[in-house]
């Protein structure tokens, strides 16, 4: 029987995380969710007619910046600037947002396209969203397992994308 990491404990974690991310660090980004159904693709799977995004949402994130670089190749001078956005899953759940590769994040007037999504930080090794329930809605070995564990974060790595490639026009934010 699970003893630690019950939802009451997790509630405390959530309070601490939100205090930390909102009141203490207060780092925000604007999230553009890629709209797959609106975006048309050609026979090569390319969004040749342009990509569509859903309305932007403002969300708290811990942003990890790597050094900028300007490699030179046969096409000229590039600009590389990778960022890692660390979101609190609770915040994502509140706004019903599931990060996916291809989504775009605006951070200080720059745009970053997500390359990878990593959602594996589970407290006490359990994600309460997957309690392995049977037909009765309970875990056969341990009823109430959905009350334990914590899916803490969604960690997204992203590369810099020039705004002209996205054609996203800032309207309100």
């Amino acid at each position, binding site marked *: 029987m699970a003893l630690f990491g019950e939802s009451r404990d997790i*509630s405390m974690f959530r309070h601490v995380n939100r205090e930390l991310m909102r009141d203490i660090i207060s780092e925000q980004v604007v999230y553009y969710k890629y709209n797959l159904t609106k975006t048309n693709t050609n026979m090569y799977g390319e969004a040749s007619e342009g990509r569509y995004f859903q309305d932007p949402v403002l969300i708290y994130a811990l942003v990890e910046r790597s050094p900028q670089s300007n490699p030179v190749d046969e096409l000229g001078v590039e600009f590389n600037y990778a960022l890692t956005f660390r979101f609190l899953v609770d915040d994502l759940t509140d706004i019903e947002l599931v990060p996916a590769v291809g989504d775009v994040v605006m951070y200080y007037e720059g745009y970053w396209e997500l390359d990878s999504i990593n959602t594996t930080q589970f407290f006490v090794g359990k994600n309460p969203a997957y309690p392995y329930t049977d037909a009765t809605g309970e875990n056969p070995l341990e009823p109430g397992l959905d009350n334990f564990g914590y899916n803490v974060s969604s*960690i997204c790595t992203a590369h810099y994308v020039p705004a002209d490639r996205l054609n996203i026009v800032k309207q309100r934010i």
Partner: protein
Amino acid sequence: MGSKLEPSFLIFIIKTLMANIPIWPGSSSFAPGDTPFGFYDTDPDFQNDADKVAKFCGLRLGYPIENVELQDINFYTAFEQAVTVYGNELYAFNVRDNYLSLEGASTGSDLNKSIITPNMVNIIKLSEQYAAEAGTGGNYNWYSGSVTLTGSVQDYNLEAWATENNISGGLEIKKVWYEDDPAISKLYSPWAGILPGAASSVGLVGVAGYGPSTNFLLMPLSFDMQNIQAIEMAQQVRVSNYTFQLINDKLRIFPVPGAGDEGNKLWFEYSIIDEKYDASITPTSRVNNVSNVPYGNPTYDQINSVGRSWIFEYTLALAKEILGYVRGKYGTIPIPGAEVTLNQSDLIAAATAEKEALITRLRDYFDQTSRQALLERRQAESDARQSEMNQVPMTIFIG
């Protein structure tokens, strides 16, 4: 290409179970039943102070700059405990200061609202053991018995004697009556012409205590006492041939009884050991230990501002301790992509030190008001005053 901002479509969201336990919002509203024991819930002053104390603690713990992961009921619990601890310390001090006067008192009294006047009951009880051993009182009986002497038999078994006389519980011989007549009978001679200092010689020949007194000389009482003691000592050391030896349960008589002693009785006094044990135990429904001294919880509205101030501080220390345990259940708290360590160890260390300091301060304060301390202070004041007065020059009156 134009703007690609479009309304959102349905996205697949995994809704996790989110039990959100509310934390301290900055204010509260106390209601009876909000404390674990409810000792003071109906006290209007307690009700009034509960929310103020909660606010005080919340602010002292960093709210609203920082979250305080506690609820109003945590503060109320700490508040109730602080009042109870204050009462415990206060009444434990009272019990310590008065227990000799309280042991044996009725448990039905309400000492919270009583003045305790010291009494000597238990001091006298303490003294009874000495009185009993000295044969001048006490709480168990002395009995007398005798063995019949047999010529040429020096040893007499007192255990066998006790069995013959159906006496159980173990004997403790208190006195063997082998003495001669009391020394007083040898002090005042009935015979004429003999001065007090030489009177013992008359007693020694067996005629003391008889006949009229014919000469009197007024002497101080101490003179008589000294003479009596001298006579007793002379009888025991220089004159008496009679003595005994008591080893285990065997009484050996000196000298060996002769044929003329046959049938005479040798008297002795004894007590029964079991009765001594029994005399030490008095079954009672009255106060017999510090746990049933009839003190109740304090009445909050009668605690003065000095006491309440202590209670508020102790409440804060307890709240700090609770918060420390809340923040410290897990060594680290996961945050996105990392972990943080909260200040639980600081909180618990500070709370422990503060609680200890507060208890020490309270006990010192109470101890300074103990009966002994107050009398000593009064004596010191008196001495100081007298010393001060001695500095005043004495006026020389010339008539």
